[in-house]
């Protein structure tokens, strides 16, 4: 059986259920890299150009972790999936960066996924990839259809408030209790999926907040049509897919004002994020009801540091909501 390696980072947290079903239906064995760890990060940092952002260094680490165990590496070149926005230039050049920076790699499967010229390209990509493993077109169509169903289900779980990791477990049939008790506070965590959902990179931030009695919401929990309503607040829509989603989610939560705070989680050296962060910060400045904090994460981030900041932030939100309630009763 052909073994295909998928690095457990970046687009994994968004598209893995789709790829998994599709490739497995075609009779391919999928090998994942190990969970992100200190060793993986260190290996990546050593091999990548020093100016790259943490997620890219991490990706190289995951590839190194995989390369000796697989026949192919699966690194799709994500250019545009909705036909309008594109991914960050580093995603666009990712297969080339990996091929240039690392030695002794197995062949890389890097289908170009660029739907700016129409949906037809998607079918082309599916068939081009599928015919590598089977000559039966019906089988490919069936696999693609099934993959789409699973991915839909995955996104429904995300919308219901599960993290990407939990949603994937649920797809595999695990029982997960979100433990939705009485939460006094609601906080939006805004960050790219590969940062907030990776338990090592985000130092388990979402879980920590839940333990502090905070209801956590994310950009994935807003249905697409709701998200699109909010671009009137933008003088120009951001042209990167993930950043566009993030900033619109931020505006959505500011606009709804049903959250107590917004935490923007960003990676050190992230290119597009300085624009997203500044815009969210300026928007927060114009509004008095939602407090904004930015947390930057890098390869040295320690758990204690992040936990301290989260606790302080939650304490501040509590003080604030207590004060608001008492002022309400007085008037």
């Amino acid at each position: 059986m052909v073994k295909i390696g998928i690095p457990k980072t970046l687009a994994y947290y968004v598209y893995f259920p789709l790829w998994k079903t599709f490739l497995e239906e075609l009779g391919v064995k999928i090998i994942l890299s190990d969970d992100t760890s200190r060793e993986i990060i260190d290996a990546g940092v050593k091999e990548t150009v020093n100016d790259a952002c943490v997620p890219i260094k991490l990706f190289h680490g995951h590839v190194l972790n995989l390369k000796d165990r697989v026949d192919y590496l699966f690194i799709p070149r994500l250019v545009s999936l909705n036909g309008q926005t594109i991914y960050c230039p580093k995603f666009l050049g990712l297969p080339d960066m990996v091929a240039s920076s690392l030695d002794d790699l197995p062949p890389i499967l890097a289908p170009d996924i660029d739907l700016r010229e129409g949906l037809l390209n998607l079918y082309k990509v599916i068939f081009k990839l599928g015919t590598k493993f089977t000559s039966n077109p019906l089988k490919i169509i069936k696999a693609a259809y099934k993959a789409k169903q699973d991915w839909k289900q995955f996104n429904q779980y995300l919308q219901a408030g599960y993290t990407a990791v939990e949603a994937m477990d649920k797809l595999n049939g695990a029982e997960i209790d979100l433990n939705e008790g009485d939460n006094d506070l609601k906080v939006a965590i805004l960050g790219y999926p590969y940062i907030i959902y990776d338990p090592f990179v985000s130092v388990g931030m979402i879980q920590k907040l839940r333990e502090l009695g905070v209801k956590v919401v994310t950009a994935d929990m807003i249905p697409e049509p709701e998200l699109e309503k909010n671009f009137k607040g933008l003088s120009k829509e951001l042209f990167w897919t993930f950043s566009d989603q993030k900033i619109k989610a931020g505006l959505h939560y500011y606009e709804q004002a049903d959250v107590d705070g917004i935490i923007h989680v960003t990676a050190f050296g992230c290119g597009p994020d300085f624009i997203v962060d500044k815009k969210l910060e300026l928007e927060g400045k114009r509004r008095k009801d939602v407090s904004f904090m930015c947390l930057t994460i890098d390869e040295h981030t320690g758990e204690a540091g992040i936990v301290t900041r989260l606790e302080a932030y939650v304490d501040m939100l509590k003080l604030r909501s207590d004060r608001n309630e008492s002022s309400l009763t007085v008037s």
Partner: protein
Amino acid sequence: MKVVLPYLSNSHVALKSLIESFDHQVITNQPSKKTLSLGVQHSPEFACIPFKILLGTYIEALENGAEMIITSGGKGPCRAGHYGQLHKEILEDLGYEFEMIVFESLTDSFRDFFGKIRKVAGDASWIRIFKTIWREWNRLTVLDKLQQKVHKVRPRELKPGHTTDVFDEVVDLVAQAESIAEIKEAKKQGIDKLEAIPQNKDFEPLKIGIIGEIYVVLEPFANLEVEKVLGEMGVEVDRSIYLSDWTEEHSFFVPAEDPARDAAKPYLDQLIGGHGQESVGSTVLYGQNDYDGVIHLAPFTCIPEIVAKSILPEVSKEEDIPVLTLFLDEKTGGEGIRTRLEAFIDLLLQKQGRKEMKIS
């Protein structure tokens, strides 16, 4: 109206003249240390150096009474496509009042593009507008042609700094020309003047190509005058990008025939925004054309150039051409750059088996 534009080296002469033809006054200062400090103070940390210099430029001009900012936009994936809008938000947050005109790509929206031209040009007739644009286009290409000549003359000059002084005069000459005929005349005089500089014609300089992100390649303040420093060390430089080429590609309907892009294909077969792909492709071309080395200039945190940088070592090996990447930010110092350039040149000379470059 008092207007501020991004300052872009000698090309500013043409841009300024263009805007001033329509009863505006351009009050852009040449960027200085102070400009950069102002920009850094109000910019997010991870913004690139062009963002910071531009923000500083705008603040200085707004303090001097500018009422309108004119700049260019873009549709990505390079971050610069959002700079106009973000600059506006930051400046408004600082309490400035002004009008901002961001020229987006012509292919995005005709109406928008021409509407903005109308806004800048007031009630001038379209014929006059196009004539003016055509005149300034000529001025821009002439300036770029003269710059290329400077790159040839400078390494051969007998008195260090002579070429730079003459070039300053020549730029003034081009700036004063009032018609296309006068611009052409200024070009002829300029070439003559540059050729009249005493030179060592027998000297065989090293040839180095300069690639990278357009702003830091074009603006000497951002790249700490790398072309001049190299020229005076006796290196003939060739720039892979000029503003006139860029404008041609981005505003007119010239089909994009870019040899650099084709050359990049074996290494990076995808447009990644900014000049990432061109950087890779130009290195290949310099390698094939027997240049001695390539210097890659990029702003710190620039995404496309980071991608290019991680691919360049492979290109360097395959095409047998040494590459030096310099990432520039607000903390880059002139002496640091000079030391690295000297070391790079020593290395290139050793590779050729030459000991010294200057015969004198």
